[in-house]
């Protein structure tokens, strides 16, 4: 049980990554592929946050004179995740707007039915 206790977040993060990859590779519906991308990104973000997580740690803010760096979580992965969430949002927004455009042109978002979309 100790292993699970220590590595829960990593297992969850990589679980999300693999679910995302599986969805992207197997689904034919573009919206589902985009959901897969979102899951993949969430998994990567969760992995980044858990890298810097300290069990029972506090936010890295030096509020008073008695605060020590020892019990704090690592702020750098959190900064990375903020950036990465913003990038992910931009990619998803672009993907969804392209999906709308594709639907207007092709009348479907089923990738298997659109010529030139099979890969």
């Amino acid at each position, binding site marked *: 049980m100790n292993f699970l206790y220590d590595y829960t977040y990593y297992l969850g993060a990589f679980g999300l*990554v693999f679910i995302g990859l599986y969805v992207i590779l197997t689904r034919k519906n573009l919206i589902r592929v985009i959901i897969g991308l979102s899951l993949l*990104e969430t998994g990567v973000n969760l*992995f980044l946050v858990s890298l810097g997580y300290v069990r029972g740690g506090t936010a890295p803010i030096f509020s008073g004179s008695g605060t020590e760096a020892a019990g704090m979580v690592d702020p750098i992965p959190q900064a990375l995740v903020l950036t990465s969430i913003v*990038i992910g949002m931009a990619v998803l927004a*672009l*993907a969804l707007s392209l*999906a709308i455009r*594709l639907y207007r*042109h*092709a009348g479907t978002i089923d990738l298997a039915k659109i010529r030139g979309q099979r890969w």
Partner: protein
Amino acid sequence: MVNPVLLIAAPLLAAFAVPLWSLISGRSARYLPVAVLFFNLVISLLLLPRVRLEPIRVIIGGFPPPFGINLTAGPLGIGLAALIAGVGLLVAFSAAGSVRGGRGEKYHSLYLLLLTGATGVVLTGDIFNLFVFFEILCVSSYALVAYPGDRPAVEAAVKYLVQGAVGSSLALLGIGLLYGLFGTLNLADIAGRIDSVEPTRIFLPLALLVTGFGVEAAIFPLNAWLPDAHSSAPPAVSAILSGIAIEVGLYAVIRVTYTLFGALSLLPFLAGLALLSLLIGEMSAYAQDNVKRMLAYSSIGQIGLILFALALATASGIAGGLFQLVAHTLSKALLFLAAGYMIHRAGSLRIADLAGMGRRMPLTSFAFAVGVFSLVGMPPGAGFAGKFLIVRAALDRGEILFTVLITFALAGTVIEGAYFFRVIQTIYFRSAPDGGAKGEAPWTALLPLGLLAAAIIVLGVFPRLITGVLDSVAGELLRGTGPGGGGLP
């Protein structure tokens, strides 16, 4: 003393200034990218002699490395920044005359963002910052591919976006693993400590990063998006995607392999993949009857050749590969632009419909021919010098493996010659069925075409103009693999 940060800040600022400016004057706003890229070209050429002596390190936000984000402008970074600005300038100039309609400013804004991302990738000294600039490059290129808004463009953009986004996520996962191992994101700092952990533990981040960045570099088998994206985008966008975006992806792969990991044992594997990209790209190009798809597949082949040379891990191999990179950037930008104007005149993408173009558009066809001769490797084009350097470097390795591989690479070049000369023959020696009206491209297009063709010839005749810089670049990359590590001190 000029600060290399301007190379990133100027186009970024201009990208957001273009829409505002166009509210005041739509006509002059489209020349803003030209002005900014000219500024970038001048700055990077001014910096180039200095960084050959010693890389410039710029500390951003007052945090000294390894804590803050820093820029590390070595000869490779500044040299590529100059190439990006130069080709970007010429393509922007030709696009300023051809992008019509009220949406022009969005195009110019995205275009500048793409070049900001590309410049940022080659100048940064921080792995996460590299990822962020890479994403700026990728997201703006997805949007630019979709820019015409017609069905093939949107389909290609969707394909490109899904594959690119998966690649980026994998690269970010690799960066996360690296941070977990080393607790730092500074390239030089990671490179200095890479030997302190077991090789098995750095294999996964290395594989993730090479795969992630390899999608943008279109290394086989990650190249499925490229033919669609490059052939359905507008000509100026294809020129910049083929000439700059995939080269930046290649830069990221090479930077990670050489400087960050010093992973020389990975290189024969990369050389094998490169050769597969070369052969598959050239053979697929041979089978095309659509001229833009043919050029797109030829880019895959050329990228394979460049990666093959870079994977030789000798100073002469790297110098040859980078020479070919410069030659490919110039000639592919030229070919996509010239093909765009010929397609516009012919009203068709098919190679057969380009018949008689040599008489209908003599100057454009001549520029196209210069690009073709250079790419195939005929003297006096720059491609001849590039291919010559690569072959010599491969033979200098003196290993059977590389001698065999370069033989296959040369076979690829023969295929390349076959399909390109077929196009030349159609353009010059077949006449259009209806005779076809004569009509040259506008002068805003002819000027960049002429300058690109001139640059190709000048580089081919005087390769020494840039081999000096390329040798210092090779030194910079190989220093990272020696004992002590850290090509970026």
